[in-house]
């Protein structure tokens, strides 16, 4: 490794992540901007739309990125040079209702508003329902909307009183509608059904192979620093909300301060949660293989630390 | 008797008609002569109710009016048969309509052009349709604005004869604007000569059967050159 050090030139790498919960995990890191290597300078870029994030990966512009876990697999299967280093956020979908629903039996015959047909929310809902004896095609009637943000107003306006909501939207909705309650935490339900510990990995942090090969030391330091930033975010809600405002993160101050955005912050490193990924990808293979590019990614997708 | 009294009309600062009063006896033909641009068409448009006069009174002119416009005003997207039908529907029943259209078209030798569109006709042919449209339309009053222009002498003769025939049979009142003095003498019971703008009535000549053509002609021409 000595020869490598000699060759190093100063350079800037790009770290892309999406607005919302992922951005909150980065906020502290961005604020401190610690110098992790004398040669590498990190440029932080927050993308507001998922499409833009996707194009950063496709064009291989990102050196580090937080992306939906299925996108990580798709990229890998399409031969793009990225590896999963850890889980940025765990599942945060909740079945919410104003009605009194206890247990899966009560769901029969109900109409559920959901979003992202053929995508993770759909997968998780269907998986959990069918593992608990509800046929998602026959026993319930699922209506889809395109984006998580469309579901909120539906629920608030009372057009539906049974809806799948995601954080941080859920907190916002609960603040505006006092009689709403969470009837199922799908991450928890998924853990039970799939027999894993942490639920499903919603967003993963991926790193470009080139960077890993070039400067392992930096990557290692970076992952530690990022983990620190995540943990800080959980413990310093007030400060976080100030940071978020400063950085233009699109989550309401009040929502952050209520602080129920997080699931399983402790589990981050890929080595601790390969099982969760395997379960997630397996479920997708049964559901719609196209969603991760047609095949189950091999071991090579995981970063060996 | 239809009549207009003290009609005034101006366009902006341009005074066109000033205190024009004319009588139009029933069943008679009044010819209007006057310099180009003096307001003859304007007068006809006022009489037919299309344009509003600025002041003055109009008496009579009840019932349907047929109008041979100075331009042909045919509907470009309808063939000539349908152009004629356009003004007849609701006034004549269907079967009669076909008959009469054929008969009239034959009269002006256009029976073969029934299905032609206006753009496919010559200027004179379009003008003949313009005239036919007025003749075919059941009315008490026919207004004609230079009807016989663009026509060769034979066609003109046919139409003039037909015009006379119609007005005798149906006792139609006619108002004809023309620049042709012979035509005016031939067709008119009365000839109204207008001045140039601001336009007033210069002279009204009643034509009697026994009047001498040459004398009348010279009299009218004198009015123009004066």
């Amino acid at each position, binding site marked *: 490794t000595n020869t490598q050090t000699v060759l190093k030139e100063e350079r800037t790498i790009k770290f892309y992540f999406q607005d919302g919960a992922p951005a909150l995990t980065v906020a502290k890191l961005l604020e401190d901007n610690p110098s992790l290597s004398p040669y590498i300078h990190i440029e932080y870029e927050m993308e507001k739309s998922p499409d833009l994030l*996707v194009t950063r990966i496709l064009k291989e512009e990102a050196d580090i990125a937080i992306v939906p876990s299925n996108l990580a697999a798709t990229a890998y299967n399409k031969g793009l040079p990225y590896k999963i280093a850890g889980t940025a956020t765990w599942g945060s979908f909740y079945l919410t209702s104003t009605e009194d629903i206890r247990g899966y039996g009560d769901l029969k015959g109900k109409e559920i508003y959901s979003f992202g047909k053929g995508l993770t929310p759909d997968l998780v809902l269907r998986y959990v329902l069918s593992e608990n004896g509800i046929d998602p095609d026959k026993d319930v009637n699922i209506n889809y909307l395109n984006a998580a943000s469309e579901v909120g107003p539906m629920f608030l306006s009372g057009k539906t009183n049974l809806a799948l909501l995601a954080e941080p939207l859920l907190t916002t909705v609960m603040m505006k509608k006092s009689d709403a309650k969470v009837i199922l935490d799908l991450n928890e339900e998924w853990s039970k059904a799939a027999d894993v510990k942490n639920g499903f990995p919603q967003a993963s942090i991926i790193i470009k192979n080139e960077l890993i090969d070039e400067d392992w030391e930096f990557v290692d330091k970076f992952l530690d620093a990022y983990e620190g930033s995540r943990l800080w975010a959980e413990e310093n809600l007030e400060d976080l909300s100030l940071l978020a405002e400063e950085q233009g993160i699109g989550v309401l101050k009040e929502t952050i301060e209520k602080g129920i955005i997080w699931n399983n912050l402790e589990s981050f490193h890929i080595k601790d949660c390969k099982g969760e990924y395997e379960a997630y990808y397996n479920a997708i293979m049964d559901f719609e293989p196209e969603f991760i590019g047609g095949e189950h990614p091999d071991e090579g997708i995981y970063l060996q630390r | 008797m239809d009549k207009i009294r003290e009609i005034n009309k101006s366009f902006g600062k341009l005074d066109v008609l000033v205190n024009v009063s004319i009588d139009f006896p029933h069943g008679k033909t009044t010819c209007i002569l006057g310099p180009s641009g003096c307001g003859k068409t304007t007068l006809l448009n006022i009489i037919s109710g299309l344009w509003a006069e600025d002041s003055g009174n109009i008496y009579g002119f009840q019932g349907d009016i047929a109008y041979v416009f100075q331009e042909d005003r045919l509907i470009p997207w309808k063939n000539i048969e349908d152009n004629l039908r356009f003004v007849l529907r609701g006034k004549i029943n269907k079967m009669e309509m076909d008959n009469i259209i054929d008969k009239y078209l034959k009269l002006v030798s256009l029976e073969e052009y029934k299905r032609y569109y206006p753009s496919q006709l010559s200027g004179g042919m379009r003008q003949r349709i313009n005239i036919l449209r007025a003749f075919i339309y059941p009315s008490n009053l026919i207004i004609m604005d230079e009807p016989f222009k663009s026509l060769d002498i034979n066609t003109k003769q046919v139409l003039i004869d037909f015009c006379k025939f119609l007005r005798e049979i149906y006792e139609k009142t006619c108002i004809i604007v023309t620049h042709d003095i012979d035509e005016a003498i031939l067709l008119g019971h009365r000839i109204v000569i207008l001045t140039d703008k601001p336009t007033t009535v210069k002279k009204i000549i009643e034509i009697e059967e026994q009047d001498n053509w040459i004398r009348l002609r010279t009299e009218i021409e004198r009015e123009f050159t004066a």
Partner: protein
Amino acid sequence: MKGYTSKGKWHVTISIALTICIYMILSWVVGDEIILPTVRSIIENIVDIGKGPSFLRILGSSLYRSLWGFTISFLLAIVLAIISGVYGPIYYLISPTIKFLNSVPIIAIILLALIWLNSEMVPMFVGFVMVFPILFETVLKSIVNIDSNLMEMARVYKVKNFYIIKDIYMPSIYMGLMNILPSSIGLNLKMVISGEVLSQPKYAIGSNLQLQKMYLNTSGVFAWIVIILILGKVLEYLMRGLMRWIKLEK
């Protein structure tokens, strides 16, 4: 444009071929299935999609929404524009709403649209909001621009309003609309499909398109685009047929 017809066919064929050639070269140069997929994989995807069990149902549903939506915009535009064109004050009463529809981005009221309407109706609504103001203005302007000489002629001859509308207004409107009909039908289909992306009805081109996009299957996206192009062509033929049927075509 007449007289080109036989030469025209040639030109069309050649230029489509040319466009495809250029695309093939481009996709070969780029060499990335995700950015510009090869023609081969697009065709494979079309075949796959075509073989799918509910393919016809998907097409039919989108086509149905598009046709209905357009018919409604079309009829409403004609009726309202005639009323506004003939009776001025009505124009001023309708115009703020038209202006509103004309200026407000659909993205902004999609929230409300989703709440007000069911997911089948939203795509039609999206198409309506885009297409209606265009049709309305075109019809209105055709009416206002009608040759006043002809109108005077009709008035002198006391032609009944019914016939004035049928024989003067309608053809004028027709000629005005001709200028804009093909592109507004295309626009409508486009917007209905966008609406489907937002409201995700069960059977819909938009829903499927969005899915392919989320799966990063660019060939699939292109396959759907090709299908939409063909559908657009079919719509155009239907339209032509309809127009010939109305027998207003010279």
